[in-house]
C-alpha cells in the first residue's frame, strides 16, 4: 500500500521563551508511517508535539533534523501540498467573503477550472449543509458553521490526504456527529485522514490506527483494536497510562 505520510527521525527544537537561551525539544526523533486509505489518529496531551509535527508536515515549520514526506515528496516543496486538505483548529476565515467566494478563492489557488469548481463548490456546500447560507458573509456564521466551511475548504481540491487538527473542537454534539460522518464518508471513499483529537471516544470510533506521543516522543503506535486487546483497556485508559496519569481509583 502506498505510503502517504512519512517522518524519518523527525526532530524539532526551538528556543524556549521562558528559559533564556535554552532550547526546547518539541519533537524527538519521530518515525511515523501512514498508508493510503487509513484514518490515523494522532494523540497526545496539550504540548506533546502534535501540532508541531503537523506544522512540519504542512511546511509551516522546518525540522531541526530528520525529514518528512507527503506522497514521497519532501514537505519543504510546495508541490507536496497539492493533494492534501488541511483543517486547522479554530480559524476565522475571511469574514467579508461568502462561503461560495471563499471556496472559489481556494479553488483558484489549486487551478481548478471554473466549471469543475462550480460543481465542486455546490457538492461541498451540500455536504457540509451550508447550501442555504452560501451567499451570506462568513462573519454572520455561527462557530459550527465556520468549522464546516473550514471542512469544505479542506476538501475543495478533492484531496487524497486530509490533515485535521482537532476538527470537532468547540462543536456541539450535533456538529461533532456531522464531522464524524464526513470523516467516515471520506474513509469509505478511500481517502487517507490524519487527525489529532482529544475526543478519545471519537478516535476509537473512526480511526484504523493511532499514535500517542508525549513530550515529543512516540509512546505507542498501532491498530486501535490491537491496542485495546493488548492493554485490556479502552483507548482513554491506555492514553492516561501512557502519559503517566494515575486516577484516584488506581492509586
Amino acid at each position, binding site marked *: 500500500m502506498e505510503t502517504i505520510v512519512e517522518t524519518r527521525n523527525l526532530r524539532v527544537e*526551538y528556543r524556549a521563551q521562558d528559559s533564556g537561551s535554552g532550547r526546547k525539544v518539541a519533537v524527538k526523533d519521530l518515525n511515523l508511517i501512514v498508508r493510503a486509505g487509513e484514518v490515523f489518529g494522532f494523540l497526545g496531551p496539550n504540548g506533546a508535539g502534535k501540532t508541531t509535527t503537523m*506544522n512540519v508536515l*504542512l*511546511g*509551516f*515549520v522546518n525540522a531541526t533534523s530528520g525529514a518528512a514526506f507527503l506522497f514521497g515528496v519532501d514537505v519543504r516543496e*510546495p*508541490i507536496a*501540498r*497539492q493533494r*492534501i486538505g*488541511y*483543517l*486547522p483548529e*479554530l*480559524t*476565522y*476565515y*475571511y*469574514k*467579508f*467573503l461568502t462561503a461560495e*467566494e471563499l471556496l472559489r*478563492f*481556494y479553488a*483558484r*489557488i*489549486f*487551478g481548478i477550472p471554473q466549471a469543475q469548481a462550480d460543481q465542486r463548490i455546490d457538492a461541498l456546500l451540500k455536504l457540509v449543509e451550508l447550501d442555504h447560507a452560501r451567499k451570506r458573509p462568513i462573519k454572520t456564521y455561527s462557530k459550527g458553521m465556520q468549522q464546516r466551511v*473550514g471542512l469544505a*475548504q*479542506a476538501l475543495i*481540491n478533492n484531496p487524497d490526504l486530509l*490533515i485535521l487538527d482537532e476538527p470537532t473542537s468547540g462543536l456541539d454534539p450535533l456538529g461533532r456527529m456531522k464531522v464524524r460522518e464526513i470523516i467516515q464518508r471520506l474513509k469509505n471513499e478511500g481517502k487517507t485522514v490524519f487527525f489529532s483529537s482529544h475526543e478519545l471516544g471519537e478516535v476509537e470510533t473512526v480511526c484504523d490506527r493511532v499514535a500517542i506521543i508525549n513530550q515529543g516522543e512516540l509512546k505507542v503506535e498501532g491498530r486501535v483494536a490491537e491496542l485495546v486487546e493488548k492493554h485490556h483497556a479502552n483507548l482513554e485508559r491506555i492514553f492516561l497510562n501512557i502519559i503517566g496519569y494515575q486516577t484516584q481509583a488506581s492509586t
Partner: protein
Amino acid sequence: MNTILALAGVVIKELYRRKDFYVLFVLTAVITLLMGSVSFFHDTGIVRYVKEIALLLIWIAALVIAIGTTARQIPAERENRTIFPLLAKPVTRGQVIVGKFAGCWLACGLALMVFYVFFGVVSGSREHYWPVLSFFQAFWLQWVMLGIVVAFVLLGSVVFAAPSSNATISFIVVLGILLLGGHLNQVALQQPEPLRSIVYGVYFLIPHLEWYDVRDLIVYDWNRVGWLDCALATLYAATYAGLLLFGAWLVFRRKPLNV
C-alpha cells in the same frame, strides 16, 4: 500567476466591502463640492484653489487607503489564522507577498481612479476644459508612487506585529520623504562631517516620492512631464518596490507563524 491573482482578488474585495474607501471618498467629495460652491470676492481664479484642495485631499485619502489596507493584510492573516489553510495549499510565502502587494496596489489604483474621475468632472464642469492626458499622467505617477508605499508598508507588516504601529511609522516615513526628501541634499551641505555624509547617504538611499507629485502642473495648467521621464519614474518605482518586496520576502520566509 493564478495564485497571485486569487490573493489579489481577495484584497480588492476587502477594500470595496469595507467602509474606509467610501468614507474617504464622501469626505473628499463633500469638501470639494462645498469649496467649489463658495464664491470669494467674485474671484474667477477660485477654481485653482478648489483644484489644489481637491488634489491635496486625494493625496491624503490615497495614502490613508494604501497604508491602512496594506498594514493589516499579513497581521490579519496571522491573527485570524487564515495564513494556515492558505500556506497548507501549494502556495509559497513569496506568492503571498506578491499577491498581497498586487491586491493592495490594484485596489489603490481602483480607488484612485474613482477619485480622479470625480476630480476631472468637478474641474471640467467649472473650467469647461478637459486636460485628460494631464489628469491621466497625474493619476499614473501617483499610482506608481503608491506602489513604493505599498511595498514599504508590506515590509513593515512582516517586521512589526501590530498593524497600528506599522501604519504610524509608515505614515511618518512617507510624509517625511514627501515633505523633506527633496531638501535633504541642501540640509547635508550645512552639516559638518560625518553628519553631512550620513544625510547625503539618506538622500540617495530613500525613494524620492516627491518626484511623483505633479499637482502643480494640473493646478496651474503647466505643461505635462515628458512621457520618457514618466517611463523612467515608473522604472525607478518598480526597482524600489521590487527591492522592498524582496526584503519583505526575506523576512517573511523564515518567520514563525505562531501568533
